């Protein structure tokens, strides 16, 4: 787990790519917030516990995590798989939360919307599918696909398959309970997300009462990396308005 900054508590739940590094957008957020970035069980250096079978297990894990670190009034932000975990958590218990921010979140299903099969494409195709800017896709691939990262990549991929293979990256029984989330909620999405097309943002907004939505143009699946300025502006604006 990494933690830096001061101010309102912001917990970031990472996506399927893992949460091993402190990224520039986290650094920027840490200028305004107490930023906490845990690494999910089954990812990176974390262990692969027997109890970890589905995303709901991680929701309960993080409810316990918030309690153990005595975190309250938490702004809970989840990217992709992390967004799915955050949504599962929020339908169960919002008592420690101040707001929910779903960033290109998995967990949902929209028939007919674009959704590449990340398990059936090559690593290069995967990077290309994640970013709108193909130059950035290749430079991120160069930066991340190193021999030192190979073991972690295999492990992360394994845990993602375990959690998301079938049904592919969503939980049908979560969707009907999203209406329970009585919490200021922001849905942030890359307009050109090919993992979960922007219809997914519409769907999340429709399913969570009162949810707001920000679509970032010319942006793929990870706006926090691809369009950090727009992303952080949207986060600051939202938290500034909803925080008590």
């Amino acid at each position, binding site marked *: 787990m990494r933690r830096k900054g001061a101010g309102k508590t912001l917990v970031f739940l990472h996506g399927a790519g893992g949460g091993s590094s402190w990224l520039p957008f986290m650094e920027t957020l840490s200028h305004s917030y107490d930023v906490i970035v845990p690494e999910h069980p089954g990812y990176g250096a974390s262990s692969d516990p027997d109890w970890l079978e589905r995303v709901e297990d991680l929701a309960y894990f993080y409810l316990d995590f918030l309690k153990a670190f005595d975190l309250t009034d938490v702004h809970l932000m989840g990217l992709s798989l992390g967004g799915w975990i955050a949504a599962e958590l929020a339908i169960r218990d919002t008592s420690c939360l101040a707001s929910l921010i779903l960033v290109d979140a998995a967990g949902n299903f929209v028939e007919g919307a674009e959704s590449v099969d990340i*398990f*059936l*494409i*090559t690593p290069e195709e995967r990077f290309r599918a994640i970013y709108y800017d193909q130059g950035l896709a290749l430079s991120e691939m160069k930066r991340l696909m190193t021999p030192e990262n*190979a*073991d972690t990549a*295999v*492990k992360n*991929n*394994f845990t*993602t*398959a*375990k959690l998301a*293979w*079938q049904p592919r990256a969503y939980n049908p029984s979560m969707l009907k309970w999203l209406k329970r989330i009585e919490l200021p909620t922001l849905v942030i999405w890359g307009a050109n997300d090919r993992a979960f097309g922007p219809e997914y943002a519409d769907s999340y907004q429709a399913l969570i009462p009162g949810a707001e939505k920000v679509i970032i143009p010319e942006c793929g699946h990870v706006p926090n990396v691809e369009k950090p300025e727009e992303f952080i502006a949207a986060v600051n604006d939202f938290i500034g308005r909803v925080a008590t």
Partner: protein
Amino acid sequence: MKFFNFHLMPYADVDLDAIKKNGTAWISFSNSNFDPLKGAKLYNRYLDELEYSDQLGFDGVVVNEHHQTAYGLMPVPAVLAGALSRSVKKGKIGVLGRALPLVNNPLTIAEEYAILDTITEGRLIAGFVRGIGAEYHSMGINPAHSKDRFNEAHDLIIRAWTEPGPFEFVGKHYHFKYVNPWPLPYQKPHPPIWVPSQGSKDTIEWAARMKYTYCQTLSPIKSVAKVFDGYRAAAEKFGYIASPDQLAWSMSMFIAETDEKAREMAKPHIEALVNQLLSIPIQMLLPPGYTSPESLKKIAESGVVGHHKTIDNLIEEGVVIIGSPETAREKLEEFSELAGFGNILVKTQFGTMLTEMARENIEAIAREILPKFQN
């Protein structure tokens, strides 16, 4: 040695350029390339070929299971085995299949096999496999659960065959209130179980411990020998000497008058099998969780997947035996001494090979090879 005619039932009329263009004959290769009129001819000629080998004295016939691919047209192998169960009069019928983890109710497999074993009055060989990684894409089963589901399904089927029902089966992936299948298998305690694999250490040890016949497929003869040594060593560890009957080598054989002629005739078909029909990208073949992260990494680093092979490579490495009757006999003698197997699963038809050629090959093997090697 026992000889089985092992059919893959490929879509032999396939447009090889279309596979090349698509990059693989699996999952993403559109079934708009399948013509049911051609399919009808293929199924019937393939069943005829298997029946013919029974008539010519092979010890049995074998079918297998793959899904959503031009590589083989037997997603439900029991249908083919059922068709053969009344026409193959003497030999055994092996199903290598069934991929246990791919079904949500393995009792259906216990039932299928029991029917086949009963109709044939005990001539079924029951294969238990995990299925290759590609099947987990096409069947929507989580590859991370593959090994667990295989083990549970295996226990369920064996118990269903050997314990009086009804009883309750409680597993993590399978839980049935009532296990009480009718019919039960004809053979007691149950049909012989064969386990084909690509040489996974765990599978070899497990098969040796259970005394199941282990079958190595599509490998150079030196690796086959190494794998079989592993089985024999494991058997010793479990306190017994493994018999050659417990080992099966799966290969392709083609015989013509001379080595040159055999090579020339077999070349396009064996190369179509290995380089087109079998071409599978690694992410399709080895989905995450199907193998342990350690072995996945090893395979990815070794680069063994997807190498283009010529017929000369395949002959030299002893993946196949292709040549004159004399060469074929010499090689089989040599390979059987090296690897010590008691069963040989011969693909007499492979790739795009037409039926006349396949039938002549079956005749040649029956005439030139069987008499010298068959027990």
